């Protein structure tokens, strides 16, 4: 029997907006979530650029007296690699994730100053572009990322490349300070009712202290860069040794910025890892108050250790000793954090989805980086290993093993929230193991090269130094790591298209951002929630045993 059916019309879908409208929306947005994603996108692009620069460096060093890159090109590459990774990858990716997550975690609808937020992003991007414009002068600056005076004076750096570099960093510094100001105002004034400062999600606490450090540490760099530009263009004598200027003054100013800078690069990651480990161990963070106090202690002490980058400049033994003591002291709160993470895992029920995998990578490698840092804090040891590959190994263990692995943990954890899709676990595992193994090969080997006397920033070396095999292993590790980044980008694109729908709370987590849909609507929360403890969603899921009973 024929069944009468209503005639079927064409399937109608709501019209997807034209790409021009989408672009306009993103370019003019003041929504913290979109701005956060813009920061992350910028960082990923610069990560790839900086990574290519690193691969070029590694290829040049694969054999003694190789002429793949000439000395000047090599020197430009390591300058740009360092500058890019620190300023246009590290800071933006952390500021971006902070921007996305902080309002959601504290139950706010946006940051305190949304337009300042947008300004901060575009200014940071402008700074990055300005630094890369230096290639248009005939070559990037070849001054090293810390640009020791008087190499930056007109006499030694004739082209305008150095000017683009200094200007670009001053400009992006403005963006960074704007972001910090925004975080401080937001975190201190826009928390949901009941969320006292001692009950904020740990990531929020670390973003607060990171912002405090930014506000103290970036302006000295801005001042120093202004001095460089004044020397180069108005005949000032800040670092002009012939006329009484001091090369050491630059070093003090730079490292007064430079050391807190590395804590700016790690504190947010400490926060991310502290969010993820409890969820995947199914246990509350062990010792929240001590972790919080340790964070503040690290921030304070980090302002007093800078001259451990200058142990070889010939300061008095008393001055050296002061910085030995402060440097060792900072290891105590860092150790406290480590033990608390372990105690959180201990007795838990640990599962190993990709966020937790990256956290374990972080723990295992940040430990090594921290320990080699302690070794270098013993100044005489540093006399031998300063400016060698041991040092490069150390800081890549903390910057990649620490910051980058932590960032990947965070991205894998919060990607479902940001996009509504799960990332592919399979691709993530491949990415993790390639990165982990390649990383250990590259930077573990560097410690040996350093101990055997290989200095940093050399474009080549003689065959009789015994470093050739070590350099080949190091380069091999880089070649193993490179595809992991490609896999990551593929994972992101593929998951955006075909990832499993995530739902609001795919990880069964406990902080406020997981109570919104994935992705959250523009206004974040229809009703601003009231919280009573550090784990508002735990309280909701376990009304019989809420956290606030144990405060």
């Amino acid at each position, binding site marked *: 029997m024929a069944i009468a059916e209503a005639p079927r019309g064409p399937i109608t879908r709501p019209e997807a907006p034209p790409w021009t409208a989408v672009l306009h929306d993103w370019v003019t947005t003041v929504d913290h979530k979109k701005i956060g994603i813009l920061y992350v996108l910028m960082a990923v692009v610069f990560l790839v650029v900086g990574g290519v620069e690193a691969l070029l460096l590694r290829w040049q060093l694969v054999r003694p007296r190789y002429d793949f890159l000439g000395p000047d090109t090599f020197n430009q590459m390591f300058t740009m690699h360092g500058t890019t990774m620190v300023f246009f990858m590290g800071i933006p990716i952390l500021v971006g994730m902070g921007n996305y997550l902080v309002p959601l975690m504290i139950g706010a609808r946006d940051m*305190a*100053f949304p337009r*300042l937020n947008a300004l901060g992003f575009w200014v940071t991007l402008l700074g990055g572009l300005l630094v890369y414009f230096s290639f248009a002068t005939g070559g990037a600056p070849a001054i090293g990322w810390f640009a020791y005076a008087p190499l930056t004076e007109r006499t030694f750096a004739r082209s305008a490349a150095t000017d683009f570099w200094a200007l670009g960093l001053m400009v992006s510094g403005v963006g960074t*300070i704007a972001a*910090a*100001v*925004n975080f*401080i*105002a*937001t975190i*201190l*004034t*826009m928390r949901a*009712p*009941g969320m006292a400062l001692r009950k904020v999600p740990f990531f929020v606490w670390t973003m607060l202290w990171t*912002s405090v450090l930014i*506000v*103290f*540490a*970036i*302006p*000295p760099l*801005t*001042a*120093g860069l202004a*001095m460089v530009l*004044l020397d180069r263009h*108005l*005949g*000032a*004598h*800040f670092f002009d040794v012939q*006329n*009484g*200027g*001091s090369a050491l*003054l630059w070093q003090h*100013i730079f490292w*007064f910025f430079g050391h807190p800078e590395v804590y700016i690069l790690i504190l947010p990651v400490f926060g991310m890892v502290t969010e993820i480990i409890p969820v995947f161990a199914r246990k509350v963070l062990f010792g929240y108050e001590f972790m919080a106090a340790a964070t503040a202690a690290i921030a304070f002490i980090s302002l007093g250790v800078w001259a451990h980058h200058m142990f070889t400049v010939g300061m008095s033994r008393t001055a050296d000793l002061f910085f030995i003591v402060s440097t060792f002291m900072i290891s105590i709160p860092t150790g406290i954090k480590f033990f608390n993470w372990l105690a959180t895992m201990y007795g838990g029920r640990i599962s190993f989805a990709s966020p937790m995998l990256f956290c374990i990578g972080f723990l295992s490698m940040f430990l090594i980086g921290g320990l080699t840092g302690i070794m270098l804090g013993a100044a005489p040891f540093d006399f031998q290993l300063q400016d060698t590959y041991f040092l490069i190994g150390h800081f890549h263990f903390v910057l990649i093993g620490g910051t980058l692995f932590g960032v990947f943990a965070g991205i894998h954890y919060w990607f479902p929230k940001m996009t509504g899709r799960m990332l592919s676990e399979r691709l993530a595992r491949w990415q993790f193991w390639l990165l982990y193994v390649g990383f250990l090969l590259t930077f573990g080997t560097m410690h040996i090269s350093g101990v055997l006397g290989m200095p940093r920033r050399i474009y080549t070396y003689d065959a009789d130094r015994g470093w050739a095999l070590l350099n080949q292993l190091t380069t091999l590790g880089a070649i193993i790591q490179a595809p992991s980044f490609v896999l990551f980008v593929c994972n992101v694109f593929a998951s955006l298209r075909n990832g499993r729908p995530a*739902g*609001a*709370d795919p990880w069964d987590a406990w902080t406020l951002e*997981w*109570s919104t*849909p994935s992705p*959250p*609507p523009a206004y974040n*929360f*229809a009703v601003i929630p*009231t919280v*009573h*403890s550090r784990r508002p*969603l735990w*309280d*909701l*899921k376990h*009304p*019989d045993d*809420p956290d*606030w009973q144990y405060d």
Partner: protein
Amino acid sequence: MSVATTTMAGPPAGQSFPVPPAIRPEHTLSPGQWGMLSFLVSEVALFGTLIVTYLFYVGKDVVGPTPAEALSLGLVVCTTACLLASSATVHVAERRLERGNQVGFLRWWLATLVLGAAFLGGTAFEWHDLIYRHQLTISRNLFGTTYYTLVGLHALHVTAGVSIMLIVLGLALCRRVTSANRAGVGLVSWYWHFVDGVWVVVFTVVYLVGR
């Protein structure tokens, strides 16, 4: 939007779930105030670096003129008095605005502006003298380098303050500034007090200690 969709059982029969304690309200500065405060901390770090640099280079010149030769207190004491007075006038302006006295606010705000401009004028005059009579330029010696950078950066901040106050003046003349929305005026006055405070330090370091 909703909380994670999990099925939650009600309390077991005869029992109720624990009730959280009441929330104590928090009192803190406004977002704008925390924002301005954080920004001013960054300015402290900026000026601090230049002040430390100034002190580091005091007495290290190989060629003159030295601060003792080039700097004179007369004019700069007047400009300092102007700037310090402007802090007082901006405070009075704020009080007037608080009480809804628009005319009083305009008057005292204008006075602040004028005093700030007078400071800048005096500085320009002083620099003219330094450059043409004492041959002190930024490239002359370490003193010139550090002096013009430090005092110049401060003057730049005064200029920015005066410019912002001009904008506020314009808005006030269009009756857009009232007692109800005086928060912004408060923030500008914080900035202005800060600029004054920095000048007290710079003046002491450059004109008293360094000489």
